[in-house]
C-alpha cells in the first residue's frame, strides 16, 4: 500500500485526518492522540476509544501509521501503551488531504463563503 498513489485514499474520514495530524509532529499513544486532537480543536472533536482504534487498525493496514519501537524517557513511559508514528506514505497522504482541503477553502473564499482572509 505504501507504494500507492496517496490520492487513491482521498478523501480521508475526519477521524483519520485528525489522527494523521496528531502524529505529524510526534509519536503518541492512543490517549495522547485523543488529547492532542481535543486541544487542537478546542474540545470540539472528541475521539472515542472505538473510533480511535478502529481508525488506527485501518491506518495500520493501509500503511499510513506504524507502531513505534522507540519508547519515551523512562519516567514518561507507560509500558502498557503502544506508541504510533506516521510512515512516509502516511505523511504524503496527510499532505495530499491538506492540499485537497486547502483547494476547497480557496473555492469557498472565492465564492465569499468565508468572512476572513
Amino acid at each position, binding site marked *: 500500500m505504501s507504494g500507492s498513489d496517496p490520492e487513491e485514499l482521498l478523501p480521508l474520514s475526519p477521524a483519520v485526518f485528525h489522527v494523521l495530524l496528531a502524529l505529524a509532529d510526534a509519536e503518541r499513544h*492512543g*490517549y495522547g492522540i485523543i488529547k492532542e486532537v481535543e486541544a487542537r480543536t478546542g474540545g470540539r472533536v472528541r475521539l*472515542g*476509544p*472505538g473510533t480511535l*482504534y478502529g481508525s488506527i487498525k485501518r491506518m495500520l493496514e493501509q500503511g499510513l501509521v506504524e507502531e513505534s519501537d522507540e519508547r519515551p524517557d523512562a519516567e514518561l513511559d507507560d509500558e502498557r501503551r*503502544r506508541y504510533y508514528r506516521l510512515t512516509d506514505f502516511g505523511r504524503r497522504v496527510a499532505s495530499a488531504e491538506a492540499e485537497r482541503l486547502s483547494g476547497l477553502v480557496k473555492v469557498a473564499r472565492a465564492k465569499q463563503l468565508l468572512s476572513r482572509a
Partner: protein
Amino acid sequence: MKTPKINASRSRRAYAVLLAAYPREFRREYGREMALVFDDRCRERSTGGAAALARLWGEALLDLALTAPREHLERLRGGGGVMKTLRTVATAVATYAFTLLVVAPLYARNTGAMPGFVNNLIDALISTGLIFNFVFLVLTLTRRLEGVRAVRAALALTTLVVGALITLMEFSPGAHAHLNLRIVVAQVLSLLVWFTAHLWWVLRKGRAGPPATA
C-alpha cells in the same frame, strides 16, 4: 458544596464488559488499550460528579454503538467470513424449518399410535433440538466460542435450560405429565444426539481446512 467523586472502578468494570460488543480479534488487539483510554477518561473527570459521569457514559455508549457494528461488518466482509456465516445461518434455518414444518406436525398427528418411549424421545428431540440449535447459532454468530468449544457450551446451556423447563413443568399447578425415568432417558438421549450431530459437523468442517478468515 463538594462535588461527589465518580466511582471509577465500577465504570471501568462496566466498560470492560461492554467491550464484548466488538469482534474477538479486534478486542484482542485493541481491547486493553481501549480500556486504558476509558480509564484515563474516568480519571480526568473523576471530580466532575454525576453530570461528568453521565457525559462520559453518553460519549462511550455512542462511540460503542457507532463503531462496534462497523468492526463486525468489516470482519464479515474479509475473506470468506460472509459465506461461512451464511452457511451456518442456512443450516440452522433449515433445521428449524424441517423440525417445525415436517417433524412436529407428523409427530402431533401420530402421537397416539406410537409406544410411550418413542413419544418421549421424539418430544425430547424436538424440544432439545430447538434449544441446542439456537444456542449454537448464537455462539457461532457472535463468535463468543467456536468449534468444539461452542458445541460443549451449547450442550451445557441446553442441559440447563431443559432441566429448568422440566422442573418448572413438574412443579407447575395442574401439571398432567409427571417426571419419570422414560422422560429423563429420552432427554439425555436427545442431548447426546444433538451433541454428536454438532460435533460431527464442526469436526468435518475442521478437516475441510481452516476458514479463509483465520
